[in-house]
């Protein structure tokens, strides 16, 4: 029963986690707007979401059991859900910084709004499950 409930919430949980991660990357861009040589980073949310939903089929953090000191430790690489990409600068500055403050702030506000949308949807699902339980 409980695993079916967590299954029901998994999609929203993944989406919120990725939104929060993207918010962190964007806040780092804004913080480093004056750092010489800093390259503006971002990731594609659609790809990241597809990877994250696909990743739950894989075994996380798989290691080989070592029974002898001469065994070579083997470990399955756990990929990050999203590859960080570089933003194409519209107006690169002379010190090598590619942060465009307007773009970053628009993306930041947009991402914050989508995070809140995700929260609202998740909250509605929790409420409907709760009311189903109370019937």
């Amino acid at each position, binding site marked *: 029963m409980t695993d079916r409930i967590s299954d029901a919430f998994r999609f929203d949980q993944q989406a919120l986690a990725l939104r929060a991660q993207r918010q962190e990357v964007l806040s780092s861009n*804004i913080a*480093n707007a004056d750092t010489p040589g*800093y390259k503006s*980073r971002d990731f594609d949310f659609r790809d990241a979401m597809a990877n994250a939903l696909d990743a739950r089929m894989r075994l996380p953090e798989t290691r080989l059991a070592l029974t002898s000191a001469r065994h070579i430790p083997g470990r399955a690489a756990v990929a990050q859900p999203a590859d960080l990409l570089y933003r194409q600068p519209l107006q690169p500055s002379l010190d090598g910084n590619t942060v465009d403050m307007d773009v970053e702030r628009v993306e930041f506000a947009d991402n914050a709004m989508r995070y809140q949308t995700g929260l609202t949807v998740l909250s509605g699902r929790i409420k409907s499950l709760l009311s189903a339980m109370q019937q």
Partner: protein
Amino acid sequence: MPLTSIFQIAGSALTAQSQRMNVSASNMANADSVAGPDGQPYRARQVVFRVSPGDGRPYGGVVGGVQVAGVVDAPSPPRMTYDPASPMADERGYVAMPNVDVVAETVNMISASRSYQANVEVLNTAKSLMLKTLSLGQ
């Protein structure tokens, strides 16, 4: 947790930008200081920013906050002003004035305060997102 590390990232940017404003204010205030404690004219200083890599987080090595890597002296030569009446004048009547570019410092100050404001906005957004997350399901 990404939302809490936003506080750390934006907070480090606030610290760095306020240090930049501090240095800029010192430059402006000493734009006419002919002699410092060592008897030499004041030299303009600039802060150098660098990314402080967050450790243990996803993307920790790539994205992170800001830190001030150091404060360097501006390399430009002192401004020579003709003022034979000054006690600091050399034998030709010139006084070495600080190499402070007041216009550039003003621009620097405005830029730093705008960046500071942007990071305060980031902090406020992260805070409101977090509070909304805490009240989830109620």
